């Protein structure tokens, strides 16, 4: 018994005891092939998945190394069957390769003839393979490159794509590190630089960075590396605008070089930012904006928030296999389980940095999460008890009892910039009145919004009430405290986004506070628990307090 920090479970999860002296070394050793699933305070859970193992293979790790790492750090004997399974799974990657043949163009080449025979017989591949060139080589039509990779992954024989990329239309892009306009000089953070290097070396793939860790800059740096026309796909217009703002501030690109392709505007420029929504709009069953992909000879395609990539985009991506593709995300976990498509169509994971690590390096602020449970008044309880099921969450979430608690919290953090986030406009209106604070919601005009943000930034407005628009990547600087009064049911994504609001590093290194106000004994509590699970698994421990503790005499400092 080696007494190592790692425990290998039979369901292929790996438990890493964080407090063990070898934990850091062990994490370094297993991170390339195991997916970090949960990272609470004492024991982190990693999972061995075929995709993770193939990701490792794609990054140049071999089965021997993986098995060795498991054996070296494992506290207990590792079941033989599991080791065999790991070795066999890893061995499947790269038996088939997509390469450019000097005379036949794109071909599928087999390192193992039996595998080629096996997959060629499969019905899934019907029509994807062309003529047989020799026993180990089959021609592939370039348009089938993506679909073939997708199908091969499903068959369990992921192909290694060595066919290379087209350079695309050249377009000079540089990082404006010396500062531009009113922005100060800056440099890429070490992990951002590493991420770009890994991505570039691999050709295509996904970079995983937590919220607030500067994924946009990784994208910008990749563009500067490619020096080619770029198509950026983002979740929505607001995010698109933020990309544009960042690119203008951080690169040599000018306003005229960046186009926005959204519901409102249809500009195609050397760098074009398009939303998923407009691309997936259908008219009469036809995707009307598909031409965008062929509009220019793109040298790089960036997918923001890969975990939200809608299914039709996967289909278009299958046709884009000759272009470099960069996926950016905070988590590779997709609610629909299509991680395999991300792997085969966009590419293997090229870089990953756990949330807490980046926090430890000081790039994101440490946060203190608190759930405040309010007890509904008897009248509210009666209303709740008699409400229709679909009304219940709204009733519980918007209980008036929450108002004084919010006020008490705002008062406690007097002098800090406080965001109050909610989902129900009526409730926000009440809060606005109660706290005497301005409200930013969907219907707020852009100018008004900018004005309020500017005022909030300057500290003129200490408290801002915002609706769901705050979920998207608007750049709210230096909010030290976020108070969440209601959310979209149990969305874990939303919770993480909102926490991200306060995680931007504080100038003075203060602690960030994140409060969730929840009505006790209602469905609100259940949804809150569900939302928090994601953050708890990320290592953010919640404290639960009663509303009376908040309303009562001030506690001894929570910090």
């Amino acid at each position, binding site marked *: 018994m080696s007494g190592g920090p790692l425990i290998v479970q039979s369901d292929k999860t790996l438990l890493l005891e964080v407090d063990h002296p070898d934990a850091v070394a062990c994490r370094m050793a297993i991170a390339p092939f195991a997916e970090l699933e949960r990272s609470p305070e*004492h024991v982190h859970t990693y999972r061995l998945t075929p995709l993770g193992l193939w990701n490792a293979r794609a990054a140049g790790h071999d089965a021997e190394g993986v098995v060795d790492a498991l054996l070296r750090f494992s506290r207990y004997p590792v079941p*033989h069957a599991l080791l065999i399974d790991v070795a066999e799974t890893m061995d499947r990657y790269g038996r088939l390769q997509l390469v450019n043949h000097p005379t036949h163009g794109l071909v599928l080449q087999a390192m193992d003839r039996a595998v080629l025979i096996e997959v060629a017989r499969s019905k899934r591949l019907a029509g994807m393979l062309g003529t047989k060139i020799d026993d180990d080589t089959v021609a592939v039509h370039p348009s089938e490159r993506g679909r073939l990779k997708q199908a091969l992954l499903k068959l369990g024989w992921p192909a290694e794509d060595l066919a290379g990329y087209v350079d695309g239309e050249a377009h000079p892009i540089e990082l404006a590190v010396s500062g531009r306009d009113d922005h100060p000089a800056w440099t890429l953070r070490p992990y951002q630089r590493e991420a770009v290097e890994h991505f570039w070396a691999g050709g295509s793939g996904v970079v995983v960075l937590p919220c607030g860790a500067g994924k946009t800059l990784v994208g910008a740096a990749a563009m500067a590396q490619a020096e080619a026309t770029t198509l950026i796909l983002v979740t929505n217009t607001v995010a698109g605008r933020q990309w544009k703002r960042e690119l203008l501030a951080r690169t040599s690109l000018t306003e005229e070089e960046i186009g926005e392709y959204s519901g409102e505007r249809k500009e195609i420029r050397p760098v074009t930012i398009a939303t998923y929504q407009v691309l997936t709009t259908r008219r009469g069953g036809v995707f009307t904006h598909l031409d965008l992909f062929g509009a220019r000879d793109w040298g790089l395609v960036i997918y923001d928030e890969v975990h939200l990539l809608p299914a039709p985009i996967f289909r278009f991506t299958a046709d884009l296999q000759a272009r470099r593709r960069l996926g950016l995300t905070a988590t590779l976990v997709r609610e629909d389980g299509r991680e395999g498509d991300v792997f085969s169509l966009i590419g293997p994971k090229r870089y990953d940095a756990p949330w807490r690590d980046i926090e430890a390096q000081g790039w994101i602020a440490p946060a203190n999460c608190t759930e405040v449970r309010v007890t509904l008044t008897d009248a509210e309880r009666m209303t709740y008890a008699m409400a229709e099921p679909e009304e219940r969450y709204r009733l519980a979430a918007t209980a008036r009892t929450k108002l004084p608690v919010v006020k008490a919290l705002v008062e406690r953090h007097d002098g800090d910039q406080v965001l109050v986030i909610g989902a129900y406009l009526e409730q926000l209106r009440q809060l606005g009145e109660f706290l005497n604070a301005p409200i930013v919601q969907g219907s707020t005009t852009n100018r008004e919004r900018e004005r309020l943000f500017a005022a909030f930034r300057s500290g003129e407005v200490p408290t801002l009430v915002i609706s769901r628009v705050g979920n998207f990547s608007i750049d709210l600087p230096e909010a030290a405290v976020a108070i969440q009064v209601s959310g979209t049911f149990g969305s874990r994504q939303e919770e993480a986004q909102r926490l991200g609001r306060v995680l931007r590093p504080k100038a003075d290194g203060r602690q960030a506070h994140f409060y969730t106000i929840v009505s006790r004994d209602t469905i609100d509590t259940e949804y809150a628990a569900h939302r928090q699970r994601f953050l708890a698994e990320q290592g*953010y421990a919640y404290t*639960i307090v009663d509303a009376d503790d908040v309303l009562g005499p001030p506690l001894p400092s929570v910090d």
Partner: protein
Amino acid sequence: MTVTIADHLRALPDDALGALLRLRPDLVVPVPADLSALALRAQSRVSVARALDGLDQFTLQILDAVRLIRNPDGQTSTAAVLTITAAPAQQVASVRAALDRLRALFLVYGPDDALQVAAGVDEVSSPYPAGLGRPAAELDAAAAEVCTDPVRLRRTLLAAAPAARAILDRLAAGPPVGTLTAAAPPPQGADPAAAESPVRWLITHGLLVPITDVPAPAKAAAGAVELPREVGLLLRRDHGPLGPLHPEPPAAAARAREPKAADSAGAGQAMEAVRQTEALVRALADEPAQVLRSGGVGVRDLRRVARAAGLDERTAALLLEVAYAAGLIGELDVTGAVTARGGPEQQFLPTDRYDMWRATSLAQRWEQLARAWLAMPRRAGLVGERDERDRPIAALSAGVDRVMVPVARQAVFDVLADLEPGAAPTVDEVLALLAWRAPRRSAGREALYREVLGEATLLGMTGLGALTSYGRLLLASTDGATVPEDPLGRRSAEAEEEKIEAMRALDALLPAPVDHFLIQADLTVVVPGPPESALAAELEIIAEPESAGGASVHRVTTASVRRALDVGYSADDLHELFRRRSRTPVPQTLAYLVDDVARRHGGLRVGPAGAYLRSDDEALLTELLADRQLADLSLRRIAPTVLLAPLQVGRLLALLREAGYAPVPEDASGATLLTRPKSRRAPARPSVTSRITDPLAAPKLSGPRLLGIVDQIRRGDAAARAARRAPAPLRRGDARHGRGPVAAQSHSEALAVLQQALRDKTSVWVGYVDAHGATMSRLVRPVSIGGGYLRAEDERTETLHTFALHRITAALAEE
């Protein structure tokens, strides 16, 4: 005259005779009457076959040599054997040793210069010693002629075409007999003009001889050929007459594993096997499997428990067999239930022993399983295959019984145990070694040996392909158990010692049980090792399992906390338990969860009551409670205005009234029930007054009554007619009445008839097919048609029927 084997036996000293009996113990069952009988038995087919089965390949080759070169008298000499084996100096010793072995077994006997082969040997061995054919002289005159002249023979041989030469080489390697189809491959690219096939050429030139007296193995007797011995010997001139000799077992190029690594991998697997078995048996405990009529567990049950334990079916079948062999599972009669066959229905359930087994340490649990596996005469690999009657073989059924399996396991482990610790031979290497050690026994057992090796890996007897150190110790201890001569039990005591040693070795590799866990903010509880039994019992209640293996992960949920509260933990107990067991500070969220659930726990109360008493007058209820007369009622106040009593309503009412109160009963909806006391009465009987009337006088009937009777009679008549006439026209295939068209009436016609009847409010005969497929007919009056249904009234029974329209086969207006 040759000396008989009996003479030899007689001449033996006692201890030599004893040695023979020790080597061939089957000779003394039963004890032979005299030495002649012993000699006879020693040469019997069965006994000789048994002796031969245990011999290695080299010894058998030497035996073949003896058989090959004996003179017509059946004798040969050691010198001759040494000559024919053409043994280089270093092999002479091994040849002699092999001969000695044969002589010790009395398969070969006689002095060095007159060796003889025991009579039974020829019967049970191949008729072609050393894979050589019979001498040409015995086969065919023409061939004999060729063979007697070595020069001519050699010349003919050299003249053979390559295809013919290939055939010769194949036959020369043995066996020397080939059927024609097998011996004559289709001429590849040969000139069709050279019509003569290679075999034909060989036969005409006397190098092959067609034979008819083919021994059993070559069945296509019609076209068999044999290679004469002389030709074979000539072809074998490179290797010597016996062909290549194998004095040494094939070298296993076994990869050397670090013994520690092998042990560790094996221990991991052992732990896994124990865990899987436990999961499997627990799945049986949760939902027992039915014992099939033919014995065993059905495919569906097997699949179910396998899924519950997260195993594939083959592994599940093996572990079920092992668990059964270890006595962890047993059959139980289901009381009351009787199968169709008449016997009691049985289920597979965990036994008491399972509970004891669970309480022991991991190593002990594994040891019990491994020992059961080694000894069980069951071949789990057969589960799911089909038996000779093409029925699937069920796990735990008699179809899996194979007596020889433990011996096969022993043979495999003998091979593994003889290798260096950490040596990991491939499966094929093990098979080659087994084949060398006992070729006669190994033939046909390859599949079984492969299974044994697979199972050994699965159970953790081997790790990374090498026998583990604890496995070695375990085998040593089981060896002891089979040694019969142990009058003082000394040997078994030693075995016990070795067994303990094996467990100790395994114990050292396995994680030590832990008595603590780590709690985290996401409410997971991680036990960093196998939990102690007390801890395991606690965890089973307070948390849901999430992941198992070397460690286990559990999650505390609202439901699990409530379960804990339900079984009697208080919130404080839970706090205390978490504090005591956790190595890490209990997260505030968990403490809050416990308190929160505890706060609501018991917020609703459920209890039994026979009746309730309610009154808006609280004082009255207080009075009732205080009333001594009513003390027996055990009234209980659950709210200011409600009392409960265990008595039933009627009795409570009576007692309260007796005590002078004025209660009123209510029904379940709260409405007052007012009942008048009902006096008891006997059943009515006619009064005598009616008897005065003249029995002969006609009863007087009033008008309405009369009409009623008439109507009743008419209806009865109509019904009777209907019953007589009834379904005739509507019955299928009833062509006697010439009413065929009705039976074949189309659906739309039937519908038209029904609609007409609906308008006219007349009755129709409806033929329809009921849910069981039976054809029926009914005389009904349609009430409505719609939604695919006909609603109609049956006048006879005055009930409303609903017919599905698609089921109506015919409709006929009543005449």
